[in-house]
């Protein structure tokens, strides 16, 4: 009997393959032999020190596999190295060995669990994640204390590396687990725990390995009864022991998908143009360095929306100027030969960002968000602008765009802050990009009637159709009960879009669309017909849309 289980998509993909059950705690295996050996503190000290050394070596080797584009991976590995090499952990472990006559692995385990307890006592989501990192490093060190002659990576993963390429089922995986697997042996990950935001999920996405997390039902099953599974992240599901019909229909789905991909590939390297020869550049919406590969693979002509929120969420303090600079610079270094539009911080009261003091709001979507928030948290805004401007030196043509603008005075104020930051940088002789334009998001309806005044301040607008639609149709897009009204094919909304584009043109504003209707098969042709200059979308949609436009 086949069995369907639902989870959450953490990295996209569709695959059918054998199951490999990955279990932790391999270091338990040889533990018992210590019980029969005599206690010798100098021998235990040596075991411990060797284990630290071998663990550090392992991570050093792992680190050398990556280049500067893998900054996230290298950062995670370096944090782990400093935790392994920590003097306090060493000292306390050695004290337990030498003064309390404890075996090295007992001593080390006790010290680590002490730190784990201290970490878990702190109310801080960032440090809670660090507990998992502690487990990761201590598993490796414990393994080497017990098996000084073996190789941790080989030992843990050898079973997998000897088997056919498989889909890995596990409770949860640490970053080292993921980096340690031989990539050619892994078809996908299915985890009963985990979250799409974990370090491990980020790694799975950047390595393009399909991954489903939070498949809780797995924990209640006797997995030994199952041999293979279908992992389909588009439906956020797995099918264990699929029957012939299920496999067949899945394979058809995959081959259709692959066929389309192949057809689309022929549009790579071409300009996007209609039959009449009208050029409609297609851009990518990105969230950071992890999207660089996808932008290149899908041949985006420019970056129409670089969202910067990702850096600011799920942490208790804002990212420093250095951290932001490094991130923006990485993106600009790889994509800076294309035009890039970066959007300044666009968050509000609905997002978890404890370091921003927003009063509780009845309706955060109509509250202090986007530029409204940045003009209240000026230091936060200035830090971001400084980081962007410093990095702009790596970009030939940069647009900086303010979100959620509703008045001209907001634009003036934001520009004033921008100019202050720019002057400060110029005075300290810091190089910035030669071509930098300022623009705004067109997402608050009333802005449409003052585009003339807007054009006195900025050179481009980008229509954020997701929010614009929700504000102009009084319709929460997430509300399932509103489905019939909440279609962007609404005639009134379409006429409104036409009005915006006409007003923009009349006032020489460059106008793009970066909301999800930019790749909507029915609306996209309409957008082109009313004169939108360019469209920006998730990179995976670009080739499909380019193919459609070639038929218009």
């Amino acid at each position, binding site marked *: 009997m086949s069995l369907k289980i639902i989870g959450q998509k953490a990295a996209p993909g569709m695959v059918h393959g054998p199951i490999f059950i990955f279990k932790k705690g391999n270091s338990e295996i040889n533990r018992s032999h210590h019980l029969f050996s005599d206690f010798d503190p100098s021998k235990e000290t040596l075991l411990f020190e060797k284990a630290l050394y071998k663990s550090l070596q392992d991570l050093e080797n792992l680190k050398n596999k990556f280049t500067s584009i893998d900054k996230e991976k290298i950062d995670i590995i*370096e944090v782990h190295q*400093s*935790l392994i090499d*920590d003097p*306090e*952990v060493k000292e306390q472990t050695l004290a337990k060995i030498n003064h309390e006559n404890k075996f090295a692995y007992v001593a080390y385990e006790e010290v680590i669990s002490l730190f784990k307890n201290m970490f878990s006592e702190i109310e801080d989501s960032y440090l809670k994640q660090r507990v998992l990192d502690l487990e990761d490093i201590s598993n490796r060190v414990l393994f080497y204390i017990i098996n000084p002659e073996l190789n941790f990576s080989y030992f843990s993963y050898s079973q997998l590396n000897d088997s056919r390429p498989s889909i890995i089922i596990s409770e949860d995986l640490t970053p080292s687990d993921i980096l340690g697997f031989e990539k050619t042996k892994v078809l996908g990950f299915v985890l009963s725990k985990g979250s799409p935001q974990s370090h491990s999920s980020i790694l799975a996405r950047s390595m393009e390995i399909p991954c489903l997390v939070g498949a809780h039902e797995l924990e209640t099953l006797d997995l030994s009864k199952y041999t293979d599974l279908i992992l389909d992240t588009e439906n956020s599901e797995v099918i264990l022991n699929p029957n012939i019909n299920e496999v067949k229909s899945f394979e058809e789905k995959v081959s259709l998908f692959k066929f389309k991909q192949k057809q689309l590939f022929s549009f790579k390297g071409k300009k996007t143009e209609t039959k009449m020869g009208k050029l409609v550049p297609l851009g990518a919406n990105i969230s950071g360095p992890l999207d660089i590969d996808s932008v290149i693979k899908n041949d985006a002509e420019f970056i129409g929306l670089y969202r910067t929120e990702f850096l600011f969420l799920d942490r208790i*303090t804002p*990212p*420093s100027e250095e951290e932001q600079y490094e991130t923006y610079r990485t993106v600009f270094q790889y994509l800076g030969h294309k035009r890039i539009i970066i959007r300044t911080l666009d968050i509000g009261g609905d997002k978890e960002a404890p370091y921003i003091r927003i009063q509780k709001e009845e309706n955060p979507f109509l509250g202090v968000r986007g530029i409204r928030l940045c003009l209240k948290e000026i230091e936060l805004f200035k830090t971001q602008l400084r980081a962007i401007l410093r990095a702009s030196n790596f970009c030939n043509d940069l647009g900086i765009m303010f979100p959620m603008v509703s008045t001209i005075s907001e634009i003036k104020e934001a520009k004033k802050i921008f100019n202050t930051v720019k002057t400060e940088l110029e005075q300290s002789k810091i190089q910035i990009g030669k071509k930098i334009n300022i623009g705004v998001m067109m997402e608050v309806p009333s802005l449409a009637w003052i585009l003339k005044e807007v054009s006195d301040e900025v050179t481009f607008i980008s229509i954020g159709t997701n929010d614009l639609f929700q504000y102009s149709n009084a319709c929460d897009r997430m509300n399932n009960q509103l489905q019939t009204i909440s279609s962007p094919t609404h005639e009134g909304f379409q006429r409104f879009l036409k009005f915006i584009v006409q007003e923009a043109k009349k006032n020489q504003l460059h106008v793009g669309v970066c909301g999800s209707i930019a790749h909507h098969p029915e609306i996209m042709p309409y957008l082109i017909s009313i004169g939108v200059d360019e469209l920006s979308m998730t990179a995976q949609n670009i080739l499909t849309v380019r193919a459609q436009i070639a038929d218009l």
Partner: protein
Amino acid sequence: MEMKKTILNPEGLHARPAGQLAKVATSFKSKIEVIFNQKTVNAKSAMSLMTLGIIQSSEVIIKADGPDAEEAIQKIATLIDNHFSV
């Protein structure tokens, strides 16, 4: 000798800044400690520093004892003032 300092950088004493502080502290012979919220930890240990849960604007005491104590305190104070960038 000791010195009171306010942590200025926005992310407080998270993994990377804690690592930087520990690295600088390790370059001195003196015993160096950080005191925060009635807890005292070894400044040479990034792991211990992280357990303090220090966020922006926290006031900490840096305490050093040894032959190069004065220099150590100066170096660490500069590091904090420079937001942990070296």
